[in-house]
């Protein structure tokens, strides 16, 4: 099918991954309890984002992606995205990476599905790029990389026809076809049904270039209109809104591809055990941060070494939410925190921890198995190149 999918796939999936990671890192800074040993500082957060974005928008990597080629398999894609995530000081074990991958893919599937015109896939990608640029705005080197990539994307994709974009979109839809993971955010805003399928609405503005249905025009042999008749449309469509901007900067108009973890302001509490829902309007992280990432937390292995004298010496990412931790947190912070439990992310703060990190990183390098690639050469060169980054 389409040989132009990869750059857009990485920008959009990578973007979704960054939204999720950024959300979690931000959440730490809102914690006010003093019982935490280490909280991600502003610098640490920035460093993580810069590392990941720098790796993703690396020139050689992007050039490789921009070559016409078939879409990778899910396995290869996941492996490459894992490498990108591990370019930072964070570590995720395979189970958590699986879960993160599912969330990223379902978000992107949703965006591709709802995309009004095939060409608007570009606007969705540009929304991701714009937000990524915001994340790294304090580091000119990385911003430059992002801009360069953005320029290349504009250059390559501006000349594609609608038909070619639709082929690209169809390739992506077929790629996502059998994934029906339920995402609590989507379930809540009812764009996803309980069986995992997305729902289409029959109202709203029609895409740019389409006209509101409902009219039949008949012409004579000379091309003059001889009759008009209307029919009920069965939906409530309105005229298209103006077209988004396809340049480096500008108003994209379409909201798909923006950071929905920031945009959603209504939170609800859904637990895996009960179906009780408590709605609370505030600006705390939305339910995705609560629910999906809590599952992520449970699945993610903690990196703490077993016999440590003090907690600070371990490079530890612990996103566990247990009842005890919830109570602990509830006691020391405000009511909001009690809904979400304790999220502990420790960053190393001292020399001893730094050496400890080096040791653990070394362990990881050995433990990491070589990914099998049954689909052949696809992605191998890419992975090899990523090793050099």
């Amino acid at each position, binding site marked *: 099918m389409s040989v132009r999918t990869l750059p857009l796939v990485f920008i959009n999936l990578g973007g979704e991954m960054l939204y999720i990671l950024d959300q979690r890192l931000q959440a730490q800074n809102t914690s006010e309890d003093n019982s935490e040993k280490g909280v991600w500082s502003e610098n640490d957060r920035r460093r993580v984002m810069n590392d990941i974005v720098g790796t993703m928008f690396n020139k050689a990597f992007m050039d490789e992606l921009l070559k016409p080629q078939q879409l990778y398999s899910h396995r290869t894609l996941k492996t490459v995205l894992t490498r990108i995530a591990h370019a930072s000081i964070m570590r995720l074990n395979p189970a958590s990476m699986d879960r993160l991958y599912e969330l990223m893919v379902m978000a992107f599937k949703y965006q591709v599905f709802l995309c009004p*015109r095939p060409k608007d896939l570009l606007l969705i990608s540009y929304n991701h790029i714009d937000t990524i640029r915001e994340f790294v705005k304090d580091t000119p080197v990385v911003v430059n990389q992002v801009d360069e990539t953005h320029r290349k994307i504009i250059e390559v994709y501006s000349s594609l026809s609608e038909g070619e974009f639709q082929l690209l979109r169809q390739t992506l839809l077929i790629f996502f076809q059998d994934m029906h993971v339920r995402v609590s955010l989507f379930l809540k805003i009812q764009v996803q049904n309980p069986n995992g399928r997305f729902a289409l609405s029959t109202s709203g503005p029609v895409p740019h270039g389409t006209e509101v249905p409902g009219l039949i025009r008949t012409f004579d042999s000379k091309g003059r209109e001889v009759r008009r*008749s209307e029919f009920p449309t069965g939906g409530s469509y309105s005229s298209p809104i103006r077209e988004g901007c396809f340049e480096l900067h500008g108003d994209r108009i379409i909201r798909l591809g923006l950071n929905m973890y920031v945009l959603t302001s209504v939170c609800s509490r859904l637990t895996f055990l009960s179906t009780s829902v408590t709605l609370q309007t505030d600006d705390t992280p939305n339910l995705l941060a609560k629910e999906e990432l809590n599952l992520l937390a449970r699945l993610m292995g903690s990196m703490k070494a077993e016999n440590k004298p003090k907690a600070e010496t371990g490079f530890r990412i612990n996103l566990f939410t247990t009842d005890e931790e919830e109570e602990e947190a509830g006691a020391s912070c405000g009511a909001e925190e009690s809904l979400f439990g304790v999220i502990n992310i420790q960053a190393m703060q001292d020399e001893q921890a730094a050496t400890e990190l080096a040791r653990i990183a070394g362990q990881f390098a050995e433990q990491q198995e070589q990914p099998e690639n049954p*689909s052949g050469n696809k992605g191998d060169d890419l992975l090899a190149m990523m090793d050099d980054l």
Partner: protein
Amino acid sequence: MYHKEKSIQIKNSASALYNNLGVLRIAPRRLTYFTVVHANVVNMVSASWDGLNYSHRQLQSKEPNVATSTSLIMQAAFCALPSRDLLVVTSQKGIQIYESDGSIMVYWHALDTPETPTAQAVFARGISAVRENYICVGISSGAILVFDVPSKGSNITLSEVLEEHKESITDMAAECSGSQECIADLVSADDGGNLCVWKSGEEFQLLNNIPGFDMSCSSVKLWKGTVVAGYGTGQIRLYEAVTGILHAEVKAHARWIYSLDIAPFSGLLLSAAEDSLVRVWHLSMTPETNSVEVTALKTQYKTFLTVDSFPQVLLT
């Protein structure tokens, strides 16, 4: 009018492809065959007319000389010729022709795929049986391959390559009214919305080239000399095939049209699009004024459309 019959569950979902439902009615055995493409597999169901028996099978895209077949299938369609019925499956690698029950592959045509992929994707899409013994298949380059099919056996030959379209073929259709008077035998559509009208024969003859308006025509039908074309803008247009005169334009759907079908004797037209609606239209020809009228019928079906089951249409 027509009515909705019992639903048939297919093994897995339909891929997001144009014209993704193939149908073949076999009257002597009181059976209908259906095909739906799912990624690199064709799901086939054989359904008895009394609604009591269903038998499923899956056809994998098996290309010779390819060790691991990861080729995606673009389309599967039945070609009902007077002497025999065949199933044609097109993919990124080539064209396969099977017996209508999918049991035996009768013919295989490989597409020229360059060693290193070029910017343009390579695939075959757009399938139609024409007159007594031709099967036409479109290619991503815009070319149309014309195959000559003997009344039995596997001695199918490539008879001609028609090079008129400059953009990828999306769909093709033969005259379906059964009338022998129609001059035009075949219409082909491409990603730019251009329509070519052909007369079949040892050498196919181009009767007309109706220019598009830079919008992909994803589905096309030919009925009583009228081209019915569905576009990415959700519009349906009716053209007189040989002259190119626009009879009617319908703002039919709010999203990309994926499939059209016509019941040749009643003139009922079905259109299905990404807006999740299946609409019914009535086409009536007025021979005196040589015009075609379109009326929207009150019924329309809202399909449970999800990204994994694009609506496809069939009219019997």
